[in-house]
Every structure is written in structure tokens, then in C-alpha cells.
């Protein structure tokens, strides 16, 4: 047995021990704390969302979402730094096949609509900024995949990303000065279940969606642009 196999064996034994301890010590199927029940009961009244997950992500644990956005931003920045700029002397890649090119043309508007729907209805139905942002990024990346020669405007994507991040923090600061808590929901709850409800939560989700979409699209385009290092 070499070192790699031994370390793998130790890892598996340790993981099994941890899982066994978790199953032995924690009651299965019973809630350990009452936080979940309290939030499920209070979220539609306090925050005004029908999607409880959105109320947890943006209202009760909004600071954690800001942390997630920061982690994503740092990761995208690091990738941009590692990959660097495109070498203009490298010849561009050949165009993709017929199926991908046709599908890219047809899919683009539908993916935009789907992503915008998932972001804007994040406080009503499952989904939200992160999922919708990933779909928006896919919508802008598929045309690049189909025709690699078409340029991706990194300035615009960076601008959108920066403004969305700043908007998220500004809404949080407005809540801090208006209500005394950072990222507290503003503007009241509205009528539960309507599109324009839940106060500032749709605005926050819009900021999250635009930021994630611009970031992921820029990251994918950067990966696509750089050639294989031989």
C-alpha cells in the first residue's frame, strides 16, 4: 500500500466515524432547535414573503448573503488574476457546429426571460438571485460558445457587477440608518403574494441576481478566451 491509499483509507474511516457519531448522538427526524418553526410561522407576517427561503436569505440572515457575495467576488477576482488578459496574437477558435449556433440564437431570449422571472419572483416562488443569475450567465455565455470570435464586453459586466454590489450594501445601509438594523427589510411588507410586496427584498434579490450573473458570465468568458497553455 502506498501513502495515497493509506491516507484515503484513513479519510474514509474518519468520515464513517463522524457520520456514526452524528447518527448516534442526534435524534433522527426531530428538530433540534425551534428556529425553523418560528421562522416558518413568522416569515409571511414579518417579512411578507411566501418563499420562506428568501426571507431567511435576505432578511433574517442578510449579512450571510453579503458574505456569500463577497466570497464569489473574491473567487472571480482571483480567477481573473490567474488567467490574465487575452493574448491578441493567438488566433481565435473555430466556430461551433450548426446545432449549437442555431440553439444559441433560439435559446437566448428564452433564457433571459427565465432568468429574469426567477430573479423577480424570488420572494414568491422557489428560486432567487443566485439561481436566476446563473441562468442569466448561461444565456450570455452560450452565444460566446457558439461564435468564439464575438467579443465579450468585460467593462460592461464589471460595471454591472460593481453597481449591483454597491446597491446591495446601500440598501443595507439605508436600513441601518432608517430602522437601526443592517439589511432590515424596508418599505413595509405589502400584500403577501403579490409581485410588488415584501418591501426591499425584491430589490436585494435583483442586485444579487445581476451581480451573480455578471460575475459568472465574465468568469466563463475569461476562461473561454484564454487558450490552452502548451
Amino acid at each position, binding site marked *: 500500500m502506498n501513502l495515497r491509499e493509506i491516507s484515503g483509507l484513513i479519510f474514509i474511516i474518519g468520515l464513517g466515524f463522524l457520520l456514526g457519531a452524528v447518527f448516534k448522538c442526534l435524534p433522527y427526524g426531530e428538530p433540534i432547535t425551534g428556529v425553523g418553526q418560528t421562522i416558518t410561522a413568522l416569515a409571511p407576517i414579518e417579512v411578507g414573503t411566501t*418563499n420562506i*427561503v428568501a426571507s431567511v436569505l435576505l432578511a433574517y440572515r442578510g449579512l450571510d448573503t453579503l458574505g456569500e457575495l463577497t466570497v464569489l467576488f473574491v473567487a472571480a477576482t482571483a480567477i481573473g488574476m490567474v*488567467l490574465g488578459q487575452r493574448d491578441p496574437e493567438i488566433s481565435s*477558435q*473555430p466556430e461551433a457546429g450548426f446545432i449549437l449556433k442555431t440553439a444559441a440564437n433560439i435559446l437566448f431570449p428564452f433564457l433571459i426571460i427565465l432568468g429574469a422571472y*426567477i430573479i423577480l419572483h424570488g420572494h414568491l416562488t*422557489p*428560486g*432567487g438571485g*443566485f*439561481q436566476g443569475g*446563473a*441562468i442569466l*450567465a*448561461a444565456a450570455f*455565455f452560450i452565444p460566446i460558445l457558439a461564435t468564439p470570435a464575438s467579443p465579450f464586453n468585460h467593462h460592461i459586466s464589471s460595471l454591472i457587477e460593481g453597481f449591483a454590489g454597491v446597491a446591495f450594501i446601500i440598501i443595507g445601509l439605508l436600513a441601518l440608518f432608517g430602522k437601526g438594523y443592517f439589511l432590515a427589510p424596508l418599505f413595509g411588507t405589502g400584500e403577501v403574494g403579490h409581485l410588488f410586496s415584501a418591501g426591499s427584498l425584491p430589490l436585494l434579490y435583483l442586485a444579487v441576481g445581476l451581480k451573480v450573473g455578471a460575475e*459568472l458570465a465574465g*468568469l*466563463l468568458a475569461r*476562461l*473561454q478566451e*484564454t487558450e*490552452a*497553455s*502548451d
Partner: protein
Amino acid sequence: MLFWIALISVVVMLSAAFATLFIRNYLAAVAAISVVSLALSVLFVVLQAPDVALTEAAVGTGVTGVILALTLRRVGLWKIEKNQQKET
């Protein structure tokens, strides 16, 4: 009914995960990883977590697969054979 859907998705996940380990072709292994995420998102729907299922389908299946495939090309493990033949 739900039991069978869950069972099928678990079997698909496990077989795709083993396929990822044993397939020699790197690109096929990346596709198998995407299949794991796809079956996992079906399992999340069965477990009544549609939010997590959406995330898994968008990020796990889509973005991760694309990033892994592009990284394969970046490090030179996946080359487009047809064009090289054309050039030489």
C-alpha cells in the same frame, strides 16, 4: 411512486459517480459529474426542497460542467482533434 423515483435517482447518481472515477476520457468524466448533479436535483425535488433543486440544476449541472470543461481545455487535456488535423 416517490420511493421509486428516489431509488432511480440514487442509482443513477451512484453509477454516474463510479463512471466519473473509471472513465478514461476526461470530457466524458465531466459529463458524468453533471449527471450526478442532475439526478441529485431530482432527489431534492422529491425531498420537497425546490430552492436547492434549482440551485443544484443551475450551478451543479450547468456552470460547474462548463467550468470544468473549459478548465480541461485550459490545461491542455481536451483538444479539438478535427481542427488540428485540418491545420497539419
